[in-house]
């Protein structure tokens, strides 16, 4: 896996703390010019095995380092059994960040995480403040755009679209395949998809904040 990752993500750092999970970190820079990324914010996007209540296997995070640069940290359960450790790792290292930013996280990511914590009988991490961009985006764009999905906003607000991006609905089965066949090829598109979502999330946050302030 490690060699394969080096090949696919040459600039990323791969760690396996306590051999209980995998953590992939890489630096990113938001495209274009504009305001800096706040360092008190944690951008969060989960990948799970389906609807709320199903196991999660990837906690994708982005936090600002300086200017428009930041670090993407992807906490990956390398098999089903590592989910608990992944949650613990997140809770200890990252959950204390005061503000979480998500897209639809109030209905999905956070309840999802809480149910899985309930499952493992762990304390539920909560941010001091939770900014759910879906709600803000709806306020501004309802009736303006055909819908307020992240993909649409990425195109209309950030002015770009992805080529050969994985469809969110295919994520669970790709992860199952990754485990079943023990083949990292299946995880790569998920990691990329999650990374791109995080970048868009951060960019959207900056744009919407400007709109809110003006």
């Amino acid at each position, binding site marked *: 896996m490690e060699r394969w990752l080096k090949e696919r993500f040459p600039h990323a750092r791969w760690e396996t703390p306590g051999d209980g999970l995998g953590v992939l970190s890489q630096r990113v820079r938001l495209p274009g010019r504009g305001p800096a990324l706040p360092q008190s914010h944690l951008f969060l996007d989960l990948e799970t095995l389906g609807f709320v209540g199903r196991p999660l296997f990837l906690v994708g995070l982005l936090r600002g380092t300086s200017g428009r640069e930041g670090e993407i940290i992807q906490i990956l359960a390398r*098999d*089903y059994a590592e989910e608990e450790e992944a949650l613990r790792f997140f809770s200890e290292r990252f959950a204390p960040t005061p503000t979480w930013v998500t897209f639809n996280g109030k209905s999905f990511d956070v309840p999802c995480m809480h149910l899985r914590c*309930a*499952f493992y*009988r762990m304390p539920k991490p909560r941010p001091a403040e939770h900014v759910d961009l879906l709600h803000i985006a709806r306020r501004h764009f309802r009736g303006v755009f055909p819908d307020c999905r992240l993909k649409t906003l990425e195109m209309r607000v950030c002015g770009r679209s992805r080529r050969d991006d994985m469809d969110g609905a295919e994520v669970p*089965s790709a992860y*199952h395949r990754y*485990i079943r066949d023990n083949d990292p090829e299946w995880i790569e598109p998920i990691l990329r998809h999650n990374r791109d979502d995080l970048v868009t999330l951060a960019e959207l946050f900056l744009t919407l904040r400007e709109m809110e302030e003006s």
Partner: protein
Amino acid sequence: MKRRRTRESTDLLGRILTLAAEDGQAVHVHEIPPREARTAPPRRPLSDPMREALLQMGIADLYTHQARAVDLARDGRDLVIVTGTASGKTLCYNIPVLETIAQHKDARALYLFPTKALAQDQLRTLRRFQRPDLDAGVIDEEAVAGGPFDFHAGTYDGDTPQTLRTNLREHARILLTNPDMLHSGILPNHARWAEFFGRLSFVVADEIHVYRGIFGSHTANVFRRLLRIAEHYGARPQIICASATIANPAELAQRLTGRVFDTVEEDGSPRGRKHFVFWNPPRIDRAGLERRSSNIEARDLFVSMIRSGFQSIVFVRARLLTEVILRYCQEELAKDGGGLAKKVRAYRGGYLPEERRAIEKALFDGELRGVISTNALELGIDVGSLDAAVLVGFPGTIASTWQQAGRAGRREDESVAILVGHNLPIDQYLMRHPNYFFERTPEHAVVDPENPHILLSHLRCAIYELPLKRQEERDWGEYAPAILDLLSEHGEAKEVKGRWYYTKDGYPAHGVSLRNTAENVYTIVETGRGDGNRVIGTIDEPSAFPQVHPQAIYMHDAETFLVDKLDTQEKVAYVHRADVDYYTQAMSDSHIEVVRTELERRMLENEIGFGDLNVHSKVCMFKKIKFGSRDSIGYGNLELPSQTLETNGAWIAPSLEVLTKVTRYGRVPAEGLWGIANVLPDVVSLFAMCDPVDLGTAVDSKNVGVPAVFLYDKYPGGLGFAQKSYHMIEAILEAACDLIHACPCDDGCPSCVGAPLPAQMQQDPDVMGKGRIPDKEAALVMLHALLGMPDYVPKGPPDESRLERVAKEQAKVVRQHAIHAGEEEAPLPPRVVTPLPADIAERLRRRLGLRKS
């Protein structure tokens, strides 16, 4: 006193016997002596609020069985309570549960009932503890707040609005639900219920005798999943079960839950004297083949009791009959004036819930004087105890018969149960041999949670819910590891670090129904009203075709509605009110079809097979039957799609030698085959660990080409019962042979070659052919010959009436066997010639140069 008593005399039995004075219908009277109440205090006194609440409900002392149940429950034992109808079973679990809940603010309890209606009923019972000063029937949470037992309770099932669900998940101390909801709605989402499961102190399962056969085997697996989830969250709930009288309640509870149970069965509740009367409608023709309608007899009995002020219930087998008999009774009672006709109702599945609640309550309050019901009122919905129960036709099992008869039974006064025989073989057998019934023990309830077909479905659900440790595998039975391997091969499961995980998308509980009945329901909509259309009832899919096909008369509360349209896409039947003097009875045609033969072998010279088999049934026509006279006044053909059960089955085709042996003794081979077909479900259920009703049988010669007996699983895709039978057919036939030999009856009875229920149970017996119990001797000759045993020499000479058939059948089977063996060509199919219209025929003849016809 809550019940209005208007009985004019206490000599109930005398009154009934007077009715039989002329025609001698009362062929047997069995007395069940009265019993004094025995009370006892529990070892440790009840809590003050509990004693107070009970006193307000009029309960000063506990019966001995209740006290013992409370003691055992307080000791933390798992227990099963098996006492009679209306003996106060629910107190046995409500007392310990409510005391625990009041003491430990965290404790939760889960109540399981086989139907939604029972859960509703029991919620009302719980509400009475909360506000004993209020009337029964209060279900509104607001109204009961602040009483001595202040807790949140509610039903959680398919009818629960989404808005209430979250609230129940978070706050319910007692949750009332059913195994289906637990299986498909609660367990797969257990993380949302983490707190509930973590604090689960009690699981109460009432009416567990219903969980037998396929339904029971599924439910047992749901129990395992439940207990596993509870354990995951750190709880080990105590289990209290209650059951109607069956042969093996403690064993059933153990098989269902995996725990060992103490049994409480010594009933301390009082009983007035009770009489069980067997009532045979009188013969109406010289030959003695026809009898008066059992529906009319039931009407006369019921009307007479209602007139004398005895509150009564009539049980019938078919839903249609509740309506037909209600109509007869109302017509009769209306002659008196005084409004008695309005004080009887029908009760059955398909009435809307609120209508059912209203009837239950009116019956309980005594406002309603009588009800005509299907077995929907057989389970423990509390309608109070009645004076008389009239059972129209044998309900099919000993246990059900006692259960229905138990609806009559006053604490002090005399009560009576009457079994009115249909003019059908089994009912007539019971009329001739009443002791058969009174001496027989109720049926065993069999479940087989480890049935691999059923287990496969639940292992999927289990690993989806919670990874399964390797050490746990064998808790699910010896085949569990092999089944997990299969799931792994199929890409649905994977073992990671000693735990099995579900590795597919989707929701495995969805594809799994716990019952072998369809879940689709049709809505019945009344049109042509001034104020717009209105839903008046519902009907399950298998019944929709025979009962609400176009032009059918749908009856509701004795009123007649004509069906205009049956929309099979939207699943709606549109009806309008139509005052007609007839009802309709659909005729269906059903047959089996072997789709693929998978296994074949010989047993001596007999052919044995196993394979995929479809059971088709098609509603093809209906008759119009005039109320009262029962005359058939017309019929109509129907074009409805056929309904198919795709399953698998095994068959036995006796060799020509075997069939000939039967005719040589002057017996009819077909009767031998039917006799064997009727005895098989009982025998096979013991070998295959299922309930006899999970099996279907048929006799048919079209599929194999020669006469054969078929046995199939009544579950889509099959559950392995027939397959097992194929492999064990010798042992099964030997057991069948022993069973018939050991049966003390003279010429066939429901325990051996007679089917306990007619094939078309939803039909009105007034409209059915009569049939007879197949010849026991023919079955014995055939079984001996099939197994290569020394010839069985039948007792007595062959029946004269059968001799002509014997010769005919012999010729037929010889020919069928010759064709089957390829010695003779199969006959050509009969031609169907539709004549040409005369003018066209003439033109064509002219064109061909033929002479004028």
